[in-house]
């Protein structure tokens, strides 16, 4: 059998990581199965639920629709890298405070998508938040509290010096 294994070096949450993978492995598989970063979730594996959202070179993407081999020299942010030690990111705090999660399975993807939004648009309207997050399905909450949490985190981040 042909050995397709490739060596890939990338930066994940600020740390350089090297891993071996086959081209057919998605970035999602690499994160979860090779690097044990299981905070990023699989919901559909075809780009239609957003549970696997990570930030790749500054842009939120569905990691199921990225090949691991594409991550060579890339910079990747996942949910595991969001908090600063024990200090939660304002989005994380707002999701807890506003009960913006129930089962919590879609939460990492939603938070990463929201982080990308706030990095580009610091004070989005509720309509804008709804549009941005429409790629991220949640089956528990009905979204009302998620939108509120993101809006509140935006305000908080904006007010920070």
């Amino acid at each position, binding site marked *: 059998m042909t050995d397709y294994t490739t060596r890939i070096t990338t930066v994940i949450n600020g740390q350089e990581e090297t891993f071996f993978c086959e081209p057919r492995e998605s970035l999602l598989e690499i994160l979860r199965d090779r690097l044990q970063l299981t905070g990023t979730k699989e919901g559909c*594996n075809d780009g239609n639920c957003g549970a696997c959202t990570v930030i790749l070179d500054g842009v939120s993407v569905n990691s199921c629709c990225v090949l691991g081999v594409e991550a060579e020299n890339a910079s990747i942010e996942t949910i595991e890298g969001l908090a600063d030690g024990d200090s939660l990111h304002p989005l994380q705090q707002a999701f*807890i405070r506003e009960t913006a999660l129930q089962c919590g*399975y879609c*939460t990492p993807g939603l938070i990463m998508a929201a982080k990308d939004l706030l990095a580009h648009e610091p004070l989005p309207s509720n309509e804008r938040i709804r549009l941005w997050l429409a790629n991220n399905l949640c089956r528990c*909450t009905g979204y009302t509290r998620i939108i509120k949490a993101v809006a509140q985190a935006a305000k908080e981040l904006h007010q920070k010096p």
Partner: protein
Amino acid sequence: MKHAEGQVDFKVIGTTPERPDGIEKVTGRARFADDIHLPRMLFGKILRSPHAHAIIKDIDTSKARALPGVHGVLTGGDFPQLESTVIPHGGASTIDIRDLAENCIARDKTLYDGHAVAAAVADNYHIAEQALELIEVDYEILEPVLEIEDALKDDAPVLHETFSPGRFILQTEKSHSNAGSFKLKLGDADRAFQNADHVLEENFQTRCLHQGYIEPHSVTVEWSHNDIMSVWTSTQGHFAIREQLAFILGHPLNKVKVTPMEIGGGFGGKDQVYIEPIAAMFAKKTGRPVKIAMSRADMLRGTGPSPGANIRVKLAAKKDGTLLGADLTLAYEAGAYPGGPVTSAALQATARYNIPDQQILGHDVLLNKPKMKQYRAPGGLPVNFAMESMLDILARKLELDPLELRLTNAMVTGDRMITGIPCQKIGGKELLKAVQTHPHFTSPLTGRNPGRGLAYAMWFGAGMTSSAVLTANPDGSVKLSVGTPDLSGTRMTLAMQAAETLGIPVSSISVSIPDTDSIAFSFMAVGSRTTHSTGLAVYDAAQQLLRQMTERAALYWDVDETDVTFSDGVFNHQKDSTLTLTFTEMAHLLEKLGGPITVQSSVTPKSNGAQLTAHLVDIDVDTETGKIEIQRYTAFQDVGKAIHPDYVSGQMQGGVAQGVGWALSEAYQYDEAGHLLNTTLLDYRMPTSLDLPDIETVILETPNPNHPFGVRGVGESSIMPPAGALANALYDAVGIRMTALPMTPGAVLEKLKKKQRGS
């Protein structure tokens, strides 16, 4: 002891502390089933039937076995041949264990598109998938049955020559070659129709759909040398999974250990085994841990769904709108095996209205679709849609306000339901009046083609067995363990009830949900029961704990036990006011007085009290495309007592979102051969954040007399009214009456065009 009646000074209950699982879930550290990684783990994949109805003539797995990296291939024949045996499924229903086993992997016949026929285990999923492509199955394709009306015909193709009629709460009896049936009757419906001023009759239809949890099913099994089977899975009931695995594999219950992981949504779809027996068999055969996870297509084709239904409603009413009689026929899909939720639908179909003469005929209909599962208020939405549409039709015919019509007929405490059973304490009229006086009810409508709709629902959740263990530690902390998985925040609502009873802050309590070896039997987290029924176990355990601590306080003070009382978190001596110890102070003394105290409670309440819900919705209709835009949505619910009001409101919002999906966009689409066409979340359309408005919630509290804090079940009822409310709003907006779900833009447009042609 505190009672909800007249009780206003709860210290913990009614507050909104932050969830214990919150930090784990927002940081990605929470462990869901698929997050398990064991050394030397293998990965399994399932081959599924491409035919809706076929005989498996032969399966050749030799090429698959020969593929490098493959460690095993299984077919139905590798599992024990079971006799048809009906076993209790937790208590509320029964299940034929042979049906359950064959639903996991077919033996002789495949009964739906997506029915598992073989499985492969390999070094990774990619190799396992390649192995599946090498399995050759010789099918003899049979004619499928895909519609309820076809399945009930005498000459319909037969799914099972014999079957054990289903029992979900009520028992059915075999009535057709593809159906079991039952009948409920109160008074004399014929009499009502003879005496009525108005008789209305209409047919309604809804389609099969999925519970849609975002987390795919995933299980990991390890089989030890001493035959202990350890299972990590995503489930609403680890004890149910344990029993089903034990029966299917013929393994003793005490050698099956199931650990419930964090669960990424269940909604009624995650209490039954699918991949678990296959992973277990692979683990046994290979001696290595085996994980099987489903793809989204696997889930849509092979798990869930919730049944579609054909419903006929006939109502008898007086001129003033008083309902005299009702006659309903409910035909619900059971799917490939009997036991769908038509019986629970029937029990709740007319409940909430006082109708003296009524009858319901129910059919549990076998057809070539997956075995139907419960979905939040099982069976409730289709018949609620039908009944609430009928009430609207009646109101418009009699030129009555739809809300007044509901008030006229609202069931009150003690009115007899269809079973003849008197209704428990409810606040139905109060709830409807709360709708009437809410600003939403009288606010002006805006938009091009606006409309407003109302629907009303009632649901009885489950009671069943729950267990709790409480330990008071010498450092003053309290450990609570419960046997019901946490779907939505129940670790917190249970800890809050313990804290309230023990008079300590909720932060002193830590909660876990141990595996089946480490906690007493508990029924599943279903039927809106956890906060209510497991809450009763927690309350009982807390009372036991206090009794033992009272004994220890008496010992410490050297006084008579009967003189020691506990109130507001403090042990007091009734006669000597200098003798007081807080709960925490008392806990610090435990080491000296015999060590920590652990108490256990298992309780089995009969029900969890009626949940009443009313929804009010404003829409705008694009008459050129048929699209319905929801502009405002308010959900009202009587929850007995809201332990954690934010969680209660979150449950209500979640139910609305699912009900709206059911009403407007979600449905399984099959071709004529029975292939499921929409097997992705692109074409299986669940609501996105852009499809829903901010959902407002109004919580009412009519205490449940059967719970110390007045709690009623909360989770289920809010899924029921959206379809009826939206259909009624649509009629209000543009004068068309939709009698089938989902009310897609295409269906609405077609009806609008018909109306235009007619006028």
